[in-house]
């Protein structure tokens, strides 16, 4: 005897109660604090802020805890929270040239004003699991040294190259309004500013894969790391009511300047071309990948043949957002039995027709 | 002294929008629209309600000469909607027409583009009377069979201009028609004839 019932509601409630319990895990293990995540999982927090397109370390750390460490879920929580907040305005563009550098390396010059500064990096560590870390213990204090006279002066490598006309200038600021893909639907071809916004908030895995493809022949741009710098910059904003720039505080950023294949024509002598990447926190791999794809997406603008995915604006912009990607891929788990029933009915009918006909259907003369 | 906007901004805007939506979805059907606003003359309560409900910083608004002459109207709209006012009908997302008899020819407004016909201007006319069941004959999407609607006052060649507008479909402007306490719609998809 079957009777229709409605069990969806209760099942959802119980699933969410189970989630809360499983998230907490073994009560004997001390609960993970948001402050611990923020301090000791800083690079993970930086990624959630960058892809969540919202700089708020405490919020990102909380989102990671709520998401049981799942980055895309945490990015989702941050993005949805963002929608609930009013926007006060846009900042004064940050000046990465005045960055209090914590890390600054260049692959194009052995030494340069401000020097090669490694900062806190995994580079050159031997990736051997350090079992000492398993036990809580004191950390040996960091070394110190007297900053050299030119330490505060860290000009950008691209500025140095530009001084001698060796690299193309950055696009001029003519005061035109800045496109914002969260406020207007994207139209193709998309302006480079929109592309950078999309890449900055794009899934690191996707952007990294695309960047890697450009190095293996899919849209080669002969890239060199002109410079990578990590450090804090002041962020300021001009409120209507005050009319002058109010300092909001300091934000850590990672900037990558790629110097790429030079380009010249009959009329202009050859110059190196630029790829640019900028991300929240210490997100070096993201900033580098972003710079490579930024340059690849400029193929049309620089008159290069668009032959590979990383150069194809619609392909990159339509698929780089982790929220849209995970939403649609995972939506396949939603009920589809009505559509499946429609397919089932057709397949059954075709199979029935197949049985009745002696020779295979293809043999029939189709009206070509 | 600046006249107040909607008493209940969230729900009054929603109610105004629903009336306009029904009016455009069912051309020939007249919907009640009683926004309870006292905007500065010559802006009518109905024009003001539609401006408050649908326009903002993203929608340039064109005022016809009758409205443009009254500085209080521009001040009211700027304060309550934040919409930029434009003197160029071809750049207007919305055109507020207080004096329909002297409404500029439709081709002065933005018709939209073949790829983006939605970027055309929406004209909002303040008529004296809208009467169902008589006058012009309407057919097309949203109408079961035919509908009839009498409008006054109208610019000369109104039906002819509508015919040209319809012929350019999917391009074309869309009309929201208001009269005291009432709203009706004439989207570009509607075919309008005298008889």
């Amino acid at each position: 005897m079957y009777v229709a019932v409605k069990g969806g509601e209760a099942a959802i409630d119980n699933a969410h109660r189970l989630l809360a319990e499983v998230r907490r895990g073994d009560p004997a293990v001390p609960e993970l604090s948001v402050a611990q995540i923020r301090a000791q999982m800083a690079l993970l927090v930086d990624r959630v802020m960058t892809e969540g397109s919202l700089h708020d370390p405490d919020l990102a750390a909380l989102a990671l805890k709520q998401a049981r460490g799942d980055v895309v879920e945490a990015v989702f929580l941050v993005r949805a929270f963002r929608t609930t907040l009013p926007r006060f305005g846009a900042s004064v563009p940050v000046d990465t040239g005045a960055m209090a550098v914590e890390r600054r390396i260049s692959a194009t010059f052995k030494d340069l004003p401000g020097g090669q500064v490694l900062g806190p990096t995994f580079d050159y560590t031997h990736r051997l699991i350090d079992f000492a870390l398993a036990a809580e213990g004191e950390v040996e204090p960091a070394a110190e040294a007297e900053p050299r006279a030119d330490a505060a002066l860290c000009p950008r490598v691209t500025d140095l190259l530009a001084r001698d006309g060796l690299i193309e200038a950055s696009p001029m600021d003519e005061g035109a309004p800045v496109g914002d893909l969260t406020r207007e639907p994207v139209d193709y071809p998309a302006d480079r500013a929109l592309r950078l916004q999309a890449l900055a908030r794009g899934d690191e895995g996707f952007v990294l894969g695309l960047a890697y493809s450009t190095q293996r022949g899919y849209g080669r741009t002969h890239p060199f790391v002109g410079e990578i710098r990590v450090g804090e910059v002041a962020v300021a904003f001009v409120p209507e009511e005050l009319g002058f720039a109010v300092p909001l505080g300091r934000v850590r950023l990672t900037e990558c300047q790629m110097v790429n294949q030079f380009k010249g024509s009959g009329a202009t002598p050859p110059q190196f071309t630029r790829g640019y990447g900028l991300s929240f926190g210490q997100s070096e791999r993201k900033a580098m990948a972003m710079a490579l794809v930024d340059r690849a997406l400029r193929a049309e603008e620089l008159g290069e043949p668009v032959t590979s995915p990383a150069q194809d604006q619609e392909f990159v912009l339509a698929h780089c957002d982790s929220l849209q990607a995970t939403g649609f891929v995972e939506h396949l788990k939603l009920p589809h039995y009505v559509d499946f029933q429609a397919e089932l009915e057709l397949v059954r009918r075709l199979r029935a027709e197949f049985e009745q006909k002696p020779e295979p259907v293809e043999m029939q003369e189709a009206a070509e | 002294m600046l006249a107040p906007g909607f008493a209940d901004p969230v729900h009054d805007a929603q109610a105004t929008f629903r009336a306009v939506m029904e009016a455009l979805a069912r051309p020939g059907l007249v919907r009640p629209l009683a926004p309870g606003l006292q905007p500065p003359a010559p802006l009518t309560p109905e024009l003001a309600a539609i401006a408050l409900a649908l326009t903002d910083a993203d929608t340039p608004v064109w005022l016809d000469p009758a409205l443009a002459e009254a500085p209080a109207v521009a001040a009211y709209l700027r304060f309550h909607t934040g919409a930029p006012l434009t003197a160029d009908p071809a750049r207007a997302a919305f055109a507020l027409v207080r004096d329909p008899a002297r409404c500029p020819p439709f081709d002065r407004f933005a018709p939209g583009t073949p790829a983006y016909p939605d970027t055309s201007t929406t004209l909002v006319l303040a008529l004296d009377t809208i009467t169902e069941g008589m006058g012009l004959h309407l057919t097309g999407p949203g109408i079961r069979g035919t509908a009839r609607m009498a409008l006054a006052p109208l610019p000369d060649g109104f039906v002819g201009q509508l015919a040209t507008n319809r012929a350019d479909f999917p391009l074309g402007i869309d009309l929201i028609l208001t009269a005291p306490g009432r709203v009706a719609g004439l989207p570009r998809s509607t075919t309008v004839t005298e008889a």
Partner: protein
Amino acid sequence: MAPDPTGSAPDRTIAGRQAVMALCADADRDDLAAALEALGSPATQDLRAPETGLVMATGRIGGDGRPFNLGEVSVTRAAIRLADGTSGFAYHLGRDRTKARHAAILDALWQDPARRGRVEAALAPVAQRAEAARVQAARHTAATRVDFLTLARGED
């Protein structure tokens, strides 16, 4: 951001006000609370309730080109008025409304030239701590610099 002594008076005042704002933005809530206490915690009234929102952080294409939208930063703002009518404002990264309100009061107090000295004195420990932290960070960073050349004349 020490005020530029050569600027005109109003510019110097704005620059001075910006410097105090920057100091408060980087300080933590307890620092500001202590400073306010030292200044007698004057009565104030909210011009606008403290509110958390967003500011779109913009970068420049190529670092020095036209702007692009990098992503938003959370910002909390407060606006208060002192008994004498002076209004004070604060805009800080993050979502700490109490801290923003403290900073708005300090901003209002600072605008009165008579009280400016005492406000800056109350904030002096905050400034010293900030400077010490900056120097410490620079020294840690300097230790990771790769030295290729040292000038023969012994200048290290």
